[in-house]
């Protein structure tokens, strides 16, 4: 099967919808697919648009976790079970965990979607996982049970309504001081990832980050998702700390839908 065949749209009707938090729903889709944790699919809602989402479940059926943000995700939230979605993929490079024994995972908000399967796979490989998950507030806490099953979960909320009060990067400092990790994995808002990257550098810890950029083609053609010379859809979304430390754009610039370079605030 060549890349053309692989990228044809596949029917993926919604089997089950769960409202996980006030702003996040998970959608189980009726299509079978294998993927490495960190890989994503393009999800198409006919007559609306097509956008990238990480897989939080693979196998005979797949699932995605969606945070309501703008036009597309709002339309997704209006769908019922049985609705039609099309998917293509999986795309991108996922996380790698060869030779690690003890790791730290840091998730910010919906970024946890990219990390939940990773934690499960790590546990299967008998890796000990400290999982720091930061949310805005108690009601936004996501995947608590799923992660508690496979990792030492430390929940943080900005308003202190659940778990430790604070932001991930602060708490992470403590963890890094007290533990010896082989590797760190992180996904969340880019400015948070920048802070985590700095800590990793300070503690000389190897890390992998799942990065988001505006995507259109997902096959490395349109150039929309570029991060320095890399294309996030193809060379990422998972990048190593070595790569990101060399980056001139990580945490600083991204390209809008027109391809305009703008600063990240």
């Amino acid at each position, binding site marked *: 099967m060549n890349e*053309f065949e692989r*990228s044809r749209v596949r029917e993926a009707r919604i089997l089950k919808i769960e409202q996980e938090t006030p702003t996040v729903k998970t959608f189980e889709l009726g299509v079978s697919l294998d993927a490495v944790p960190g890989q994503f699919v393009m999800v*198409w809602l006919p007559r609306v648009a097509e956008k990238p989402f990480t897989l939080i479940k693979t196998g005979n059926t797949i699932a995605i976790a969606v945070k309501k943000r703008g036009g597309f995700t709002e339309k997704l939230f209006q769908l019922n079970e049985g609705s039609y979605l099309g998917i293509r993929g999986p795309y991108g490079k996922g996380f790698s965990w060869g030779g690690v024994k003890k790791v730290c995972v840091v998730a910010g908000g919906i970024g946890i979607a990219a990390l939940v399967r990773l934690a499960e796979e790590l546990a299967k490989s008998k890796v000990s996982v400290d999982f720091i998950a930061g949310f805005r507030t108690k009601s936004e806490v996501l995947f608590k049970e799923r992660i508690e099953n496979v990792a030492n979960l430390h929940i943080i909320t900005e308003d202190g309504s659940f778990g430790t009060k604070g932001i991930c990067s602060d708490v992470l400092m403590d963890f890094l001081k007290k533990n010896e990790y082989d590797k760190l994995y992180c996904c969340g808002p880019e400015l948070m990832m920048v802070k985590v990257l700095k800590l990793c550098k300070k503690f000389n810890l190897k890390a992998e980050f799942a990065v988001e950029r505006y995507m*259109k*083609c997902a096959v490395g*053609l349109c150039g929309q998702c570029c991060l320095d010379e890399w294309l996030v859809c193809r060379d990422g979304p998972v990048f190593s700390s070595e790569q990101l430390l060399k980056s001139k*754009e990580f945490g600083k610039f991204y390209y809008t839908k027109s391809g305009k*370079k703008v600063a990240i605030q």
Partner: protein
Amino acid sequence: MQHLKEATPCFLNLFIFIFGWVFLPSLETELCNVSLKNPLILASGVLGLSKNNLLRAQRGGAGAVTIKSVSLEERSGHETPNIAFFEAGMLNAFGYCNPGIEEALKEFSDLSCFEVPVIASCTASNASDFAKLVEALDKLDFAAIELPLSCPHTPGYGLLAGQGTPEATKEIVEACRKKTKKPLLVKINASLPRIGEIALAAEKAGANAITCSNTLGPGMVIDINSTKPVLAFKVGGVSGPAIRPIVVRSVYDLYKRIKIPIIGLGGVLRGEHVIELLMAGASCVGIGTAIALRGHNVFEKCCDEMLAWMKKHGYKSIGELIGLAHE
């Protein structure tokens, strides 16, 4: 003796030099007096939004790179899906998304990081806008400027603005010619029956080369499960292997009709396809869609395949291959 001892390595060097010259093919070539290390050019619109994009293609072995077509104003283009696949290629309908000429002038103001020529591309709805863009791009260090008069999927531009006629081509090229001394490449669409006349009109109006072809069609892919066309814009230009024979025939026809060089573009995946287009009459060959299949170093891969084939068949230079199918 001493004399001889010293001479030996010198003879050897000479021998190696002659051997290399006799047996090792070279991919070096030129287009409109710009010299290229190989005849492979990154197609416009594929990567090309940013300098970084283009650097990636340079690193992948491209002999020259083209920026994504830029328009006067910023355009966010059509909604996603912008691409749709079928077993023999793909359709795209990005709708000329680009940050606009002002941003582009900033982005490409300094091209000193490039070792290969960078070609500009611009698109507009009429001759005077084209002329404005060319005037602006002329100030930067681009090696040439390409005018795509042939996009099949953007209202107000290319074929959907009636630019695919000899008359419109003449008007636009003449207006642009006045604004720059840089080589002007006119990109046409092999879907059209009158490409010979269009190319002749471009040549007469002062174009320095013809790029053939833009994406064909347009085409449509319907997802039968949702009963809907996949592309948000419904139709899109066809690229990839599906279009190669039509592009080869068009290049072959043009080679007989025009004197300016032709850049063959469409459906090239391998070095053998590059050679096919050269033999049809192309001086250089563009690559776009193949990147999705073979990665960003597809240029390097094609070069290796070309060299292997040329060695086996005893060809020593690109020049020997151009137009060979006409003999």
